[in-house]
């Protein structure tokens, strides 16, 4: 091969995690000095692709991947992060990997310190060399100047504004002499708008210096503004390679989401909200401080007896909504249930008032893993509703017979596959664990059931059973179901309405049969800006 046309080529990259195919023949080509955008929903395969590019151990400990990664036209296939670093691939992390107590220079030069000989090092070997602070400072200055940063290179990192930390990270990467490709993973997520603007200018500048840039972001306007080419991933496949000139936000949004919807749910009639309707839950200006899923001023009304889906991209706050209603994370604002105020930050009060919750963190929060199925099912009702209690001489005993009978009923009704009610929940499969969680919620006889990520990590068959069960509860018992999920297709298949959360606020509510474009725009926070299409 003569001079390679592309700096980075990914050829036919495929990867499966124990039979579950997450990447299918992905091809991406990036030239030197090009800014290449990579977009896709959560779970589309972006992070897996990046892990492959960086030779992360998680890839190689799960059987490696198929296909080739070519750098400058030569097969490189990095097997460890160190190898990929030597190939000239750098990454700016979403969470900053900086040591707060060290100065900017020390952080930039971390593990690549410039050293000089001294008396001891000559005797005791290179580990004893003195750091050449002057030279390190000069190098850092140079890197910072390239970024147009006038900040003193000897300031400690602790206390710098987030924007600056991001620049320090970039400075660290460009200080590496061999840097050819720089990956940004959601770089502007933590930046304020003015910082983001400045940041994008610097990215452009870096590209002009001949560094290829792979830019991952959920902010589509940013992608359009800065990139030369865009690759759209969906379900582990490249659905489109676009030249940015030809693309617009609508088109990308549609490509990102585009899925066939189950036709069973297409006949739902979407009604606009009115003032005098019967709302079972009225959330006003809700703030939830859940790490990674912060809700910032959400207003949402839930109709009695409906299935309301809550969707949105990861980290935008959709998971925080249900956790906030249950009071599991610090919350402020107002929640009215049946026009009565629901006390905040008190899980017991929420449960008392007939709100049940099936958590997204099944194994962490949802189950007593080392306890039996029957105890897991009974315990909430025992605590909240004083069910399953037998009084003997003023001592409140747990009525084991009743608990057993109830568990057997539930096992039969929800089709929990187990060896019996005494089996430990740790030994159950994900789907059956989920059913135990739902059974526990049902034992509370709630009028509202909040279900978060009900199908995460469970197989397709179990998925359908769990979703059908929710529909059944809604239809037969008139229970109001609020389902939060990252899988839009799932929400569209069962919900009456779907609320999309963006940056901790309600972006809008859509009918399940609304167009892909609308969903895509809402999830990217572009709906309001561009006007309804």
């Amino acid at each position: 091969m003569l001079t390679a046309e592309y700096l980075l080529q990914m050829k036919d990259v495929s990867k499966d995690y124990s039979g579950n195919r997450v990447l299918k023949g992905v091809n991406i080509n990036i030239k030197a000095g090009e800014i290449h955008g990579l977009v896709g929903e959560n779970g589309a395969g972006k992070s897996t692709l990046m892990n492959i590019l960086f030779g992360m151990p998680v890839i190689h400990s799960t059987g490696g991947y198929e296909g080739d990664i070519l750098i400058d036209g030569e097969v490189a296939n990095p097997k460890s992060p160190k190898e990929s670093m030597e190939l000239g691939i750098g990454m700016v992390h979403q969470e900053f990997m900086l040591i707060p107590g060290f100065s900017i220079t020390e952080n930039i030069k971390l593990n690549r310190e410039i050293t000089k000989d001294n008396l001891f090092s000559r005797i005791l070997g290179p580990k004893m060399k003195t750091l050449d602070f002057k030279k390190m400072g000069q190098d850092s200055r140079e890197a910072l100047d390239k970024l147009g940063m006038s900040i003193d290179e000897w300031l400690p990192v602790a206390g710098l504004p987030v924007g600056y930390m991001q620049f320090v990270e970039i400075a660290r990467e460009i200080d590496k002499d061999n840097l050819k490709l720089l990956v940004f993973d959601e770089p502007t997520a933590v930046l304020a708008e003015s910082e983001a603007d400045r940041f994008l200018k610097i990215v452009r500048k870096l590209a002009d210096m001949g560094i290829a840039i792979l830019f991952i972001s959920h902010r589509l306007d940013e992608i359009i503004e800065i990139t030369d080419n865009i690759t759209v991933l969906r379900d582990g496949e490249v659905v489109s390679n676009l030249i940015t000139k030809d693309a617009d936000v609508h088109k990308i949004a549609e490509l990102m989401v585009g899925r066939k919807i189950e036709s069973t749910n297409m006949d739902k009639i979407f009604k606009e909200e009115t003032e005098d309707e019967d709302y079972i839950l009225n959330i006003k200006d809700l703030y939830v401080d859940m790490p990674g899923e912060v809700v910032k001023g959400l207003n949402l009304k839930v109709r009695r007896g409906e299935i309301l889906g809550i969707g949105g991209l990861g980290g935008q706050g959709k998971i925080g909504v249900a956790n906030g209603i249950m009071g599991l994370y610090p919350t402020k604002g107002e929640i009215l249930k049946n026009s009565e105020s629901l006390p905040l930050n008190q899980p017991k009060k929420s449960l008392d008032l007939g709100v049940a919750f099936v958590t997204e963190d099944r194994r962490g929060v949802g189950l007593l893993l080392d306890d039996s199925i029957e105890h897991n099912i009974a315990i909430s009702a025992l605590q909240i509703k004083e069910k399953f209690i037998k009084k003997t001489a003023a001592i409140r005993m747990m009525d084991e017979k009743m608990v057993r009978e109830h568990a057997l009923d539930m096992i039969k009704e929800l089709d929990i596959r187990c060896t019996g009610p005494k089996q430990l929940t740790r030994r159950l499969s994900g789907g059956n664990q989920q059913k135990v969680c739902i059974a526990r919620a049902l034992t509370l006889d709630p009028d509202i059931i909040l279900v978060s990520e009900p199908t995460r990590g469970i197989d397709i068959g179990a998925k359908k059973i769990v979703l059908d069960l929710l529909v059944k509860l809604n239809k037969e018992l008139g229970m109001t179901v609020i389902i939060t999920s990252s899988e839009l297709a799932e929400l569209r298949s069962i919900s009456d309405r779907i609320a999309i959360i963006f940056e901790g606020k309600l972006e809008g509510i859509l009918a399940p049969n609304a167009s892909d474009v609308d969903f895509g725009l809402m999830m990217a926070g572009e709906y309001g800006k561009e006007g309804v299409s």
Partner: protein
Amino acid sequence: MESFKNFVEKVGYPRLIIGGFLFILSIMAAMLSIPIPGLIGDILTRIGMNGILVLAMVPAIRAGVGLNFALPLGIVCGLIGALISIEFKLTGFTGLFITLIVAIPLAAIVGYFYGQMLNRMKGQEMTVGTYVGFSVVSAMCIFWLLAPFRSPELIWAVGGSGLRVTVSLESSIDKVLNSFLSFNFAGVQVPTGLLLFFGLCCLIVWFFGKTKSGVIMNAAGSNERFATATGINVNQQRILGVILSTILGAIGIIVYSQSFGFLQLYNAPLYSAMPAVAAILIGGASIKKVKISHVIIGTFLFQALLVVALPVLNILADGNMSEVIRMIVQNGIILYALTRKTGGDLA
């Protein structure tokens, strides 16, 4: 081979090794013609003596506080109770009951404040507990010196100020439980009252586990986030567990002392938590999960090992080899258990 593996997994290495060691020692004891009935009698007495101190670990583990290394807290409460009953010249069962009646509320109060403290340093309970235990023993050394007791049984014979290091219980509650309904069967002296009392305490703790409070406390201990989401006040449950554990510690030392015949003050309670911790771990408990059967099996294995090892090793080797063995077993087993998340039996 497969079934052997299952068996090992089910019984757990600690139990298997200690059990095997005990078995070998027993055969050696028989070969060296050491009187077996005497040994069995000793084992029974020591199970009754130490059992309740081991049982004190149960509520703490169930409430999620882990092994209660601050057992000396409960122990000093029990000692104070006993001292007061001696001061008032109470004897026999009256003495024992008054001792308990004084010690239990005291332990409850101490446990409450200790529980409050643990709630502020979650995740480090065992380290903190160890040092709280040490500090309390030292602080109490000052108390023993200054406490206003007057009974000549308690204070130094000459000079007459401050409590003795060991106080004889001969004239008060010595062996009240041991000799209650005690009988001799085939040369084995059975301390019926002592064993019954231990059994009763086990039963109460087991029964508590079946009540609503017990079930809720267990849930709070096994998964804090789960409990919070179920509307359980986790901190309150942890305090409850610590209180129960401290109370059992107080009762435990009273029962221990009446069997031993002496109250041991000053530095004696310093390492008292270690044998109890070791015993329950040998029994198959982990720092997260425990059953009453673990208490009984663990106390038996640990105490039987000590009783049998002493005469055998004294014949075979010089010096206090049995004390050395006890130290190795005790600390080794604690170390082993702390490196594992689960206990011997997972079933």
